[in-house]
């Protein structure tokens, strides 16, 4: 039970990682009633890695893409998903 985390651009640079596997077993579930893991749960777990992670993952405009689609933090994460975190896009 794991997901792939991808980081891009300034976030990748700040955290020094571009891609890693995250075990879902260690992530606290959303609450006692619901046993789902959300993007918010993942962010909370990663933020606990230290102040750098906390600051980088809690910047106001962070974008979350689950399996290549932009989602809100309440999106539910499942085994095998790919969750990408990055700053606002600046292509074109």
């Amino acid at each position, binding site marked *: 039970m794991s997901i792939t985390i991808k980081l891009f651009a300034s976030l990748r640079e700040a955290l020094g990682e571009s891609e890693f596997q995250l075990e879902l077993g260690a992530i606290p579930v959303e609450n006692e009633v619901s046993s789902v893991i959300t993007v918010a749960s993942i962010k909370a777990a990663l933020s606990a890695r230290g102040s750098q992670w906390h600051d980088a993952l809690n910047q106001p*405009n962070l974008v979350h*893409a689950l399996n*290549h689609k932009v989602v809100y933090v309440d999106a539910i994460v499942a085994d095998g998903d790919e969750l990408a975190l990055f700053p*606002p*896009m*600046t292509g*074109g």
Partner: protein
Amino acid sequence: MTVSLQTEPIDVVAEYAALVGEAPGAAVATFTGYVRNYTGEDPVGALELEHYPEMALSVLEELGQQAAERFGLLRWRIVHRFGVLPVSETIVWVGAMADHRGEAISACECMMDTLKTDAPFWKREQGPSGARWVASCEHDGQRRERWKRSEERT
């Protein structure tokens, strides 16, 4: 193929010819973006474009499809580069062919505005004082919103 992600410079002549083909529609609009030589007062040495390949491809395919349906396009194409891009080289090319000029031109503009805020690319400029990530532009968000609002209206 309606979308191409590539490191090599965009061949605007070939892209145009491929879009128009043997039987052109009545209206063809194109947009080409080039690497700026200045950002404000700072000269730019080169641009690095980081991207998220799988998501970039699917986002561009989807926004092109949506523009095609919305504006009744006969054909369309989006080309975006990534990697290190020298100043004055091409970054992005979009083309739209339709029966009427308004549709072709609006589709180009809509594709560009949507691509700017929705497609996972990030620019880093190499300047005299090192490299810096280009900040996203509020104006781009407003331009993107326009298309959402007018879509809801129709």
